[in-house]
């Protein structure tokens, strides 16, 4: 126990000695969270709209008003002829172009449906799809005001996040990713550096057992990771005002099994590599990218091909995403989340066992 404590103190001292690492550890996450928390939004607003109204009637102007009065669209240009729309779309100045042909109002008065053309820029699929969706809704709305309704109406009831604010989920997710990147990188460097600098031999001749050595390398970084989460959490709750419907204590406790996995992965990286450069590549490419892409954080897992869906089961962030959504937005507790907790603990145990095994073989 004493020896373990000594190692812990040594690691913390080493962290303190590099004057540049402390700001990186504690200031960078906060800044990242502030910027990235705002950036990670799928709430599309102000889609750039260009209009070509060839009808010039009250009905056509009303339709245009329907588009421009919502915050979804921002009118960038109204042009007199249709061929003037092309350059606007091409240059990206407009993403949606609405053309109202001459005779639009006359058709509708005489009982024929009035056609309008909506062109969407599909090169940014997200903005394109969502913009097109908004446009169709605006047209429907206008249709309804004109005296046409459909008999069956959909009355949506959105649970957990009634305003459909993407921030409510994205911000906790960004925090999870930041803490994952930090803790994994720190531990990934921990053993490789000793090996590269040549101090590994000295550590090995101490009476430390391999398990103790690993623990001594993990604990300080676990501490750092936890402090990081504690400093960033107030930002999530008070600055971004993400509702926390579940228990704060539970949230903090459940960060631990997740960190067990990320720290363990970092350690595994450091037992698999010889130089810090290799460690960096392995950590970035093999261990971090899957967490970002295969966790369901941005891309829903259910859309992936079956093989990749299977792969996601070994991605710790996948389980943590469910935990975050559960505690923050749904307000559920262990009664619902226990499978995720078990999975994280199991994964963590396997990862640590692998790291320990690799480490022993290297001795």
């Amino acid at each position, binding site marked *: 126990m004493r020896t373990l404590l000594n190692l812990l103190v040594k690691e913390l001292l080493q962290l303190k000695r590099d004057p540049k690492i402390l700001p990186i550890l504690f200031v960078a996450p906060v800044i990242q969270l502030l910027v990235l928390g705002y*950036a990670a939004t799928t709430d599309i607003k102000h889609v750039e709209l260009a209009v070509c109204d060839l009808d010039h009637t009250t009905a056509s102007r009303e339709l245009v008003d329907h588009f421009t009065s919502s915050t979804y669209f921002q009118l960038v240009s109204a042009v007199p002829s249709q061929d003037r729309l092309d350059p606007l779309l091409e240059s*990206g100045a407009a993403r949606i172009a609405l053309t109202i042909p001459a005779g639009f109002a006359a058709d509708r008065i005489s009982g024929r449906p009035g056609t309008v053309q*909506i062109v969407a820029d599909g090169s940014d699929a997200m903005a394109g799809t969502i913009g097109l969706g908004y446009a169709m809704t605006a047209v429907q709305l206008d249709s309804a005001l004109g005296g*046409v309704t459909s008999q*069956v109406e959909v009355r949506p009831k959105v649970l957990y996040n009634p305003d459909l604010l993407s921030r409510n989920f994205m911000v906790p997710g960004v925090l999870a990713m930041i803490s994952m*990147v930090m803790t994994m990188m720190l531990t990934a460097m921990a053993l490789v550096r000793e090996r590269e600098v040549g101090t590994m031999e000295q550590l090995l001749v101490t009476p430390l057992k391999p398990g103790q050595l690993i623990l001594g390398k993990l604990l300080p970084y676990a501490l750092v990771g936890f402090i990081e989460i504690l400093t960033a959490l107030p930002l999530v709750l008070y600055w971004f005002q993400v509702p926390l419907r579940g228990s704060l204590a539970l949230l903090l406790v459940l960060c631990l099994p997740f960190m067990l996995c990320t720290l363990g992965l970092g350690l595994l990286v450091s037992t698999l590599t010889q130089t810090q450069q290799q460690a960096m590549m392995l950590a970035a490419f093999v261990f971090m990218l899957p967490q970002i892409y295969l966790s369901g954080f941005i891309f829903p897992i259910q859309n992936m*091909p079956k093989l990749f869906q299977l792969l996601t089961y070994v991605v710790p962030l996948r389980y943590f995403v469910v935990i975050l959504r559960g505690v923050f937005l*749904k307000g*559920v507790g262990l009664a619902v989340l226990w499978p995720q907790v078990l999975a994280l603990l199991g994964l963590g145990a396997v990862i640590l066992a692998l790291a320990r095994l690799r480490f022993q073989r290297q001795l």
Partner: protein
Amino acid sequence: MIRRTLAVAVKELLQLKRDWRSTATLLGMPLVLLLIYGFALSFDVQHIRLAVIDHDGTQAARDVAQAFLESGYFDLIHRGHDQRVLDGLFDSGRAQAAIVIPDRYGADLEAGRAISVQFVLDGSDSQTATTILSYARQIVGSLSPVVRTPGGLAPIAPRPLVWYNPDLSSSRFLVPGLVAFILMITSVIATSLAVVREKEHGTMESLRATPLLAIELLLGKTLPYLLVASLSAAGSLLLAWALFGVPLHGSPLWLALVTLLFLFGGLGWGVLISTLSDTQQVAFQLGLLSTMLPTLLLSGFIFPISSMPKAVQLVTHIVPARYYLVALREIILKGAGPAVWWSQIVGLAVFAVAVLTLATVRTIRSL
């Protein structure tokens, strides 16, 4: 000057050759990553887990449920009469959406009375929820007869048209973004340890004793990696075209030029980090922190820049992938000429020159 720069480049190339594992990783990794994620990622929402609560039980009500299943977007996970199960289904995440058909649905439909059908959905993933809701509106709308008030106007028939990416396939849109993301990380990782390693190993002193100028040292360090990165960029773009059907509508020459500029900026950023840090650990942290999440979230790859707050939009200007992504989409998806994306070129060039100048200044001061 050119001779001395080349001498450093040759030395660095030799080192790259000696550490062939890292070189192979730098060359091959982008391809492997593109291969994996290009297949795995998509925004198209399918297999939505749907619960149907049918209070009516008539044929008309069953038609609604059937229409949802036949749309191909929904998987039925529960069908029943009791609304109380919904809480449990949603809390545990087993259901993503539920449609509640009121009793008398069949009778009301026949009598022509207005009906509202409740559609419950899990909003915790807001983007998926928005998509699901629009599917539901379409499906219910297609089942519902249209009612016209006497004397009112006829409906509007919108004819939607999508340019550049007619089927709105997300791979055609995501793969270019993925290419930019992977190349950015690879190029920064490639050079971020290049200078700091010399510092840590103590070989910086020997370099200092040579008549090398700072700019020669940095350019010499960057050039070999530019070679490696260009090769993997060419490979990635070829793969995107061959495997994912990402077209190339514009000129390959422009594409090459823009890509080179982008890589130069990325490598320069790595070099700058390297000169700023004293240990590889710091360089490692700075390198990954400044590329991984910012390139993912601030480049417009996934989240449209125009929806971000103004202040954050300003920050995106120091993310080189932002410029590259626009140019890439313009050139390969739209086939647009430089008149449209010249400002992106300027952005990339300014970034590359700025980071290399900063790195040079830093190195001169520490020499």
